[in-house]
């Protein structure tokens, strides 16, 4: 049974025509998205800038209360 499934997939991929082009596009797109775009331009900001979940929570809480803190400073 597992052999039949493998053969099913192998034959399917082998006989593809339009599918070959589509797979090339999918793979190229995934490489661009994950290896280039994500890696170079889209860091997880909180993960990169803070070491622990507690520090991340502290940062977000600070943003949530920032307006009041700024107003207090102005006063």
């Amino acid at each position, binding site marked *: 049974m597992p052999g039949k499934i493998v053969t099913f997939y192998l034959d*399917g991929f082998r006989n593809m025509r339009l599918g070959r082009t589509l797979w090339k596009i*999918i793979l190229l797109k995934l490489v661009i998205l994950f290896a280039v775009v*994500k890696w170079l*331009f*889209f860091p997880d*900001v909180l993960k990169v800038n803070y070491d622990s979940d507690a520090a991340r*929570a502290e940062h977000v809480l600070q943003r949530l209360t*920032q307006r009041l803190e*700024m107003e207090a400073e102005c006063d």
Partner: protein
Amino acid sequence: MIESIDPGQVNWARAQFAMTAMYHWIFVPLTLGLSFLCAFFETIYVRTGTPEWKRLTRFWMSLFAVNFAIGVATGIILEFEFGTNWSNYSWMVGDIFGAPLAIEGILAFFLEATFFAVMFFGWDRVSKRMHLFSTWMVALGSNLSALWILVANGWMQSPIGMRFNPETARFEMQDLWAVVSSKVAISHFAHATSSGFLLASLFVIGVSSWFLLKGRHQLFAKRSIAVAATFGLLSALFVAFTGDEHAYITVQTQPMKLAAMEGLYEGQVPTGLIAIGVVNPAKKTGDDQPPFIAKVEIPGLLSLLAHRKFGTFVAGIDDLVWGNPEHGVVGVDEKIRRGTLAVTALADFKQARKAGDDISAQIALDEFRQHEEYLGYGHLQTPEEAVPPVGLTFYSFRTMVGLGTFFILLFLLFLYQSARRGLEKNRWLLKLGMLSVLLGYVAGQAGWIVTEVGRQPWAIQGLLPVGVARSNLDTGTVALTFFIFLALFTTLLIAEVKIMARQIALGPEGDAT
């Protein structure tokens, strides 16, 4: 909003998200609808045993494959943007979105690894019934995947089933069922997926019309049109029904959005519906200027649509911003006061925790719980900030509704001419069928503009404005990635159109999946 916000950065991040979502929605609705149309075509093939229907199914399946392949993973970019441009938001909703998105990911993986393979590789290798079952599973699975994304979006429009934890600064899931079965999420899902069915029907009709205009594959095209026009008509009627229901729910959950959709500033008893109008761009909430330069109004209709009852009051923008005690409407000015109390209590809680003062922390927490539903309003400085862009929301809504009505007539015309065997003689109708593919996309995009622009300034309705949800990044960085995505998506779109056009030109004889 907060003084330190760079509006340029927020707007670039918004523009980037909007652009990504709009491109994503070019691919998604066609996948949702075409998967079902392929299932219908194949069901007819299995029931009749006619090879022509198999050829027809395989042709539309090849176009489905092109669209799916080009569109796959375009949604992942939205997740990149969450982590980078909207990191505060992303942190706060991680617990809520985790479950639906994980279910979606697992479902999509198993679906694609199994039934997609049988659907494309399994012709003549598995039984007819097994193949048909796989095609139906792909259709159901694709649409179920959409459910989880729309549940997440629905939660942002109407956040329920959760509680804010001030220790972790996260919204934590309390009741998954409440999130999944929220009336906003359900009506959102029903409306969005059925609009996908409608678009796919237009697509099949448009391509088939081209074949008829060229005098090619006539029987094939007529059969495709007969099925697509039937499915399209039923979908268009369902879209109208779910759209009405969605608007009815919006009155209860996002009355400001509804007011912007209608360009309604002062609620009346009864409230009329502006069928067509030219919005006065100089109009601001609270001033004396007229909201419209020109308008055609249907008296009392908005009351009926909004509350299912004639003669009822529908709150306008001014009522919602400044309050209307006579009709029990709490104004944004009052919500800002309560929101500020929530933010103050949160700050006190934070400070007390830092000082290790548990008693003061508990008092602050109790105070916070009393006002937490207005948390987001504590970040607004003026009540006017709660008003979304009225003109864009108003016109987009009318574009969507107008085109939706037109599509019902179009499907009826195609069905009528199909029944009379008069399709080839009415070349104008075939040309209109081709043009309507584009109009279908316009209607879908307009719908999303209403949904998303109409709920500004909120990332999470009433709880988190976009200015607080965003990350602290350079405007230049966000602008740069905007253009990178613009280039990437445009390339993908050109690839889709080119490959699709080539497949269509090859016709059903050129099946090559």
